[in-house]
């Protein structure tokens, strides 16, 4: 398919345009109609608000951490308080932000529409997931208010079960409950994608966003229960002192590690895969081309999901797994890099010769490409056995996973929120401010985390609140970067909020994109489609779109 040049033709006339009279936002009024809704789009909005709330809580702790690390002396807080800071930061960011971010918000909103369905298969279960998210979140906050947790987000035994006298059980209960929220989301997506596609929406006509969320859902459904049972065991061990993980009673802390990482390694793909889906959509739209190697990109999601289950022990190289198994896991880890690389290369080929434009979502997507690639390549270093032993538990690790997760997932999340904001709200955001935010975030991010690679390489360990004076310069840089980054995150909060009332009316398809979601009104009707659509073209078929626009075929809604 050749690139089709385009101009944005159907932006509505500013003086006369209004939002569609009837849409999912004004269909029913009152708080209760939201709290008891079964509409996947409203639930997505509920999630978006909740997740943003927790993101800023997690961010506040990041700020506190960086503030303490401004100076080599432990002058802001005592070491146990510092431990609570980074634990809270990690727990909130991982379980309350990264894991649900794209699936629960954008996935919830878009997957049914993208496949031509009226809703997810189980609307009540969907709402239940949101309540579970909040109940779990409240437990986590309760642990914080009662005095905090200091195990880190990994709840490592025997630390968590024997040595730390904090609210581990409360926090673990919280994470356990949030786990069920993500299991139910995943289950709902899988059933919906299998059973509710519109006529003509074959697997290989499905947008890549659906594929990647599908793969992530498989991971959620298979991995999360293992985390859940592990946390039950930790809680029981702590409460009644049984000995599954306690060496003095014959238990083995390594068992905990195996069970925990069996979830938590795939969990990083739960976090990143949906983000990769966003990137595919954005890159294709703003280079006006079908994603190069569509099938390879689709299957690479599934491959990542499958391989993801066989590499967990690379988190345990220094914990006493045998040399033989360390070697095997090291090799397997390298293998997972392959499907990720397939995606990166295919995106690059898509961009090549595309008619690229740099709207805000595209800026974030470019941010993603750069940062995720660095994060991924440093991951290969870490998968290499010898390197890992030098670098593990240093700031190199911290930099690596922030590049992957923050540089990757968070950039993708912001790309997606901007990309689909007109669809969700019917309004555009201010163009120049949003570009400024994207650039600020990118600069702030690099300033924060690049120094941490060097710090780690020089040997600064993670999870310490004091350090030798020679590390100060780099730490000051990092803290300065975090401040810039903080501004970069605040900006969208402000202008997106502003746009809800004052933004220009977006129209159905401001980006001239091909997905089904762009063929219906913005914001959509509660029932998405009045008549079930029949799909007769591939995903990202811009020739079809040009044709359609020329003929002014009427759309639904």
């Amino acid at each position: 398919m050749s690139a089709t040049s385009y101009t944005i033709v159907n932006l509505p006339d500013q003086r006369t345009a209004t939002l569609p009279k009837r849409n999912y936002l004004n269909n029913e009024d009152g708080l209760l109609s939201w709290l008891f809704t079964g509409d996947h789009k409203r639930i997505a909005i509920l999630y978006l608000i909740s997740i943003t709330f927790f993101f800023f809580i997690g961010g506040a702790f990041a700020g506190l951490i960086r503030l303490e690390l401004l100076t080599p002396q432990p002058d802001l807080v005592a070491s146990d308080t510092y431990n609570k800071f980074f634990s809270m930061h990690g727990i909130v960011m991982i379980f309350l932000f990264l894991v649900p971010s794209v699936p629960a918000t954008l996935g919830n909103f878009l997957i049914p529409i993208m496949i031509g369905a009226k809703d997810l298969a189980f609307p009540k279960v969907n709402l239940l997931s949101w309540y579970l998210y909040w109940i779990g979140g409240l437990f986590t906050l309760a642990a914080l208010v009662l005095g905090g947790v200091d195990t880190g987000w990994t709840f490592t035994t025997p630390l968590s079960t024997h040595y730390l006298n904090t609210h581990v059980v409360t926090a673990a209960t919280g994470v356990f409950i949030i786990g069920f929220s993500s299991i139910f989301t995943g289950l709902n997506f899988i059933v919906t994608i299998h059973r509710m596609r519109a006529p003509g929406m074959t697997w290989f006509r499905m947008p890549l966003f659906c594929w990647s969320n599908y793969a992530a859902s498989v991971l959620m459904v298979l991995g999360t229960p293992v985390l859940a049972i592990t946390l039950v065991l930790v809680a029981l061990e702590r409460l009644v002192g049984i000995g599954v993980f306690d060496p003095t009673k014959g238990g083995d802390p390594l068992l905990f590690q195996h069970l925990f990482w069996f979830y938590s390694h795939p969990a990083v793909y739960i976090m990143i895969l949906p983000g990769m889906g966003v990137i595919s959509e954005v890159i294709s739209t703003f280079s006006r081309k079908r994603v190069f190697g569509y099938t390879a990109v689709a299957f690479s999601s599934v491959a990542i999901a499958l391989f993801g289950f066989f590499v967990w022990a690379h988190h345990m190289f220094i914990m006493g797994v045998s040399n033989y198994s360390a070697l095997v896991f090291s090799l397997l880890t390298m293998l997972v890099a392959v499907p990720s690389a397939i995606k990166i290369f295919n995106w690059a080929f898509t961009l090549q010769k595309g008619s690229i434009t740099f709207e805000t979502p595209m800026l974030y997507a470019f941010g993603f490409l750069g940062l995720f690639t660095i994060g991924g390549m440093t991951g290969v270093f870490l998968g290499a056995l010898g390197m890992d032993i030098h670098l593990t538990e240093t700031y190199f690790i911290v930099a690596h996973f922030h590049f992957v997760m923050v540089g990757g997932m968070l950039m993708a999340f912001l790309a997606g929120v901007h990309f689909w904001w007109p669809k969700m709200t019917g309004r555009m955001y201010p163009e120049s401010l949003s570009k400024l935010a994207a650039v600020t975030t990118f600069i702030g991010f690099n300033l924060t985390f690049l120094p941490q690679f060097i710090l780690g390489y020089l040997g600064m360990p993670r999870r310490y609140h004091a350090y030798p004076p020679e590390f100060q310069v780099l730490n000051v840089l990092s803290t300065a970067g975090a401040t810039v980054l903080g501004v970069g995150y605040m900006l969208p909060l402000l202008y997106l909020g502003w746009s809800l009332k004052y933004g220009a009316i977006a129209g159905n398809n401001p980006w001239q994109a091909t997905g089904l979601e762009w063929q219906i009104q913005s914001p959509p009707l509660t029932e998405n489609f009045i008549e079930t659509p029949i799909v007769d073209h591939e995903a990202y078929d811009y020739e079809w779109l040009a044709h359609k626009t020329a003929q002014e075929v009427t759309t639904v809604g």
Partner: protein
Amino acid sequence: MDNAIVATHPHTHETAIAAEHEHIVLPQHRHHFETQEQQREAATFGMWLFLLTEIMFFGGLFFAYLLYRNWYHDAFVVSSNQLSIPLGAANTAILISSGFFMALGVWAAEVKKQGLLVLFLVLTTFFGVAFLGIKAVEYHEKWEKHHIPGASFDVSQFINPEKYGLHEKPLAPDMAQKTQIFFFLYFAMTGMHAFHMILGIGLLFWLTWRAKRGEFSAGYVAPIENFGLYWHFVDIVWLFLFPLLYLINRHPGT
């Protein structure tokens, strides 16, 4: 390429005709499904996936069991000898009966026999409760013998079995400690299983009440079918637990 992405499409109409044809006009039809059939398939598929998550959930415990059983073989043999085969076997029989009645219940719902359905659901519940009763007896016995980990667990009986009238090979003190892990896993696994049964019995009460009101006698059987899957799954977990905990490698002591 044809360009009508969203054409009017007679699906809804067809559905109406099909429904009329089969005389199924079900109030339980949810608006977002195209057809009754789609709704039913989705529910069943969802249930299977849910059971898959349950397998992973129990899988963590089975993994722990296999690992420790390999390491602490002697302790596991001695401890599993402490479990009562007659009680375990009785429970297996009871649970299989309950599963049998559940299967009959699904059949009754499918052939639209309301009275039989209620009867079979009640029988399923009865056997489920009986199972839990026996489990309670077993737990009580463990309590009396000081086999509850963490509480007043007593390893001396495994170090000096004769003194306690046990026909077992004496264990070295550190191996004797490991019996505690066996009992912990016993409680964790059977406890998790019992917890699933308690949930299931709660659901059975609710389904029985709905069955009495005739909700499942007109062709809408998905809840019964899917609950049946859940109940069979719980049975099957027990069919693994019983040999693993009670039977494997059991042999008379020295």
